[in-house]
């Protein structure tokens, strides 16, 4: 079963999207900020990371960098799900896909499916 780590500080969004993922047959781990996400990844490495950008404590970008810096995690595909307009930093592929929040359910599930079928492809589909 494909394991997805979902990170968002808004409880309602966390619940809605994890419900959608579970409904579509994924195993979902939840975290409310970057630190909780790192802790969860240390327990078990997910097949996909979906994270919000603006979160208290450790934000989405810091989480992406932390993941890319660890060799054992560097290949995990990341979806950045945010309502903010962000520019992709040059020189490093911090995230593989960027979804504008709130994404449509079709797009969301389609992106998740694509990234979980070709692990480590590192392709930005946004």
């Amino acid at each position, binding site marked *: 079963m494909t394991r997805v780590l979902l990170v968002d500080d808004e409880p309602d969004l966390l619940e809605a999207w994890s419900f959608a993922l579970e*409904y579509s047959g994924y195993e979902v781990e939840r975290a409310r900020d970057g630190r909780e996400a790192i802790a969860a990844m240390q327990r078990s490495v997910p097949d996909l990371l979906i994270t919000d950008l603006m979160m208290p404590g450790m934000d989405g970008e810091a989480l992406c960098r932390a993941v890319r810096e660890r060799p054992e995690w560097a290949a995990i595909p990341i979806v950045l799900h945010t*309502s903010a307009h962000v520019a992709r930093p040059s020189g490093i592929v911090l995230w593989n896909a960027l979804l504008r929040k709130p994404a449509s359910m079709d797009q969301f599930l389609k992106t998740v499916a694509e990234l979980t079928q070709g692990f480590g492809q590192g392709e930005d589909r946004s």
Partner: protein
Amino acid sequence: MTDSTSRSAEASAVGTADRAIFDRLIEPYLMLDPGLRVVFANRAWLAMFGETEAALGQCEHLIRALVANLHPGQRRLSPAFSLDTPDRAAATHEQPSRYWQIHVSHLPATADEPPLILLRFDDVTMHTLATRTERREKARLRSHARLRQILAREAEQRLHDHRVRFERALAFAGVGAWELDVGTGAVHCSEQCVEDLGLPDIAGLDRQKLFIEQPDPVAEHWQALQAKRSFECERCIDGARGRRWVLIRGTGQFADDGTMQSVMGFTLDITSRKERELELSATAGEERSGRERSEALAKTMDHFIAAVSHELRSPLNAIVSWAELLQVVADPSHVARAGEAIRRNGRQLSHMVDDLLDSGAVVTGKLSVHLQPVDIGALALNVVEDIRKTAEHKGLRLQTPHVEPCIVMADESRLEQVVWNLLTNAVKFTDAGSVSISVSTSDGQAVLTVQDTGRGIAPDALPDVFDRFQQIAPQSSGRVGGLGLGLWLVKNILSLHGGTVDVASAGRGQGATFTVRLPLDSNLR
């Protein structure tokens, strides 16, 4: 004794013995008969004056005047007169004459002798010359003194003129002058100075009276004065002419040994200049503070807009997300769950929009309340249920340890807004632990408290908690935590109800307690 013919011719009038005695006297003596013919001249006389006729010719008038009406037995004294002796007659003119004084005695006739006039010639040259010198000296001194007096008077007059002209110039320039004797504290100053310094009187001035405004500028600039530098300071003086600004300058006057003897200086009324200066700096200050205010306002507005968009977006995102979910789920229980989430987030959104609209109404003073009896206890429990889900999502316990029914006169929806804002605020700033709400009555008031175990409030931030747009370290958490309107609205709504809200916190990380007090409905009290 002598070969003089005249002496032998008069021998009968003066006895030989008398002649011998007179000849032994050192003063010149001359004896005349009442017809002023020479009867006898003693040896000293002849030695001094030589031939009797020549000498007598010189002073005949004097002798005649002396003996006129001189009766037998009487004596007279002539004034001093000069009579050149033969040895001096040839002498140079530079040598002073000799001076003589004649003592005249009219010797009465005896039985065998006719009356005689006895003349004694006293040499008073020294005395006369001394007296004359003294007199001349005195006259000279007198004339010197008079000259000095005249000179002094002239100098005084000139000084006075100079001073008058100087003071007139100073007055024309509006400058007052003063001088302070360092040793005695005595003060001299011009009228302009007295006026400038707002002093009541020019008489009896001393250091204390001159510089009423403390600190005494001379004392204040003592070191500079000792270092032979002048000082300058501005003083604000409230006097009979109102508030004046005066420039005071002073400089030390030193004795040869280097000790400062006095301080001299000027005063100048600079009120108009100073007022313009103050006005300009006030204007500049106003402009600056105005600019700062508008910059701060712009910053607050930027922050506010960022906060509003984020806060509105959160429930909006949740609503859209759950709505998206409805497309894929068919199970009624899932549909109900989505519907509940949409309803909850919709309510939250609507509360926020209400807050925003109300904040405008508060600012324009148009926030109105429709008062009616409301049970604040029941109302609080309803709000608790609305928020329970949010609190539980954060892992917080939402507790209602003591809620009793309390009827207050209130606008129900406004009161709901108050409780909602206090509870969401507590949940927002509490990361772990619990949020408790209780309602009770005390002293004719309904008391509602919301207590949390959250981040707490630093003592210095407590007074600002109810200000608009104030949040605990809004930027430090990496995201904006709310509109910053909730507590401000709570305070304003409660004041419309005659109620109050207070906050207490033991500090950062120590949680906070908000206490609302509302008067109980008077009909039920």
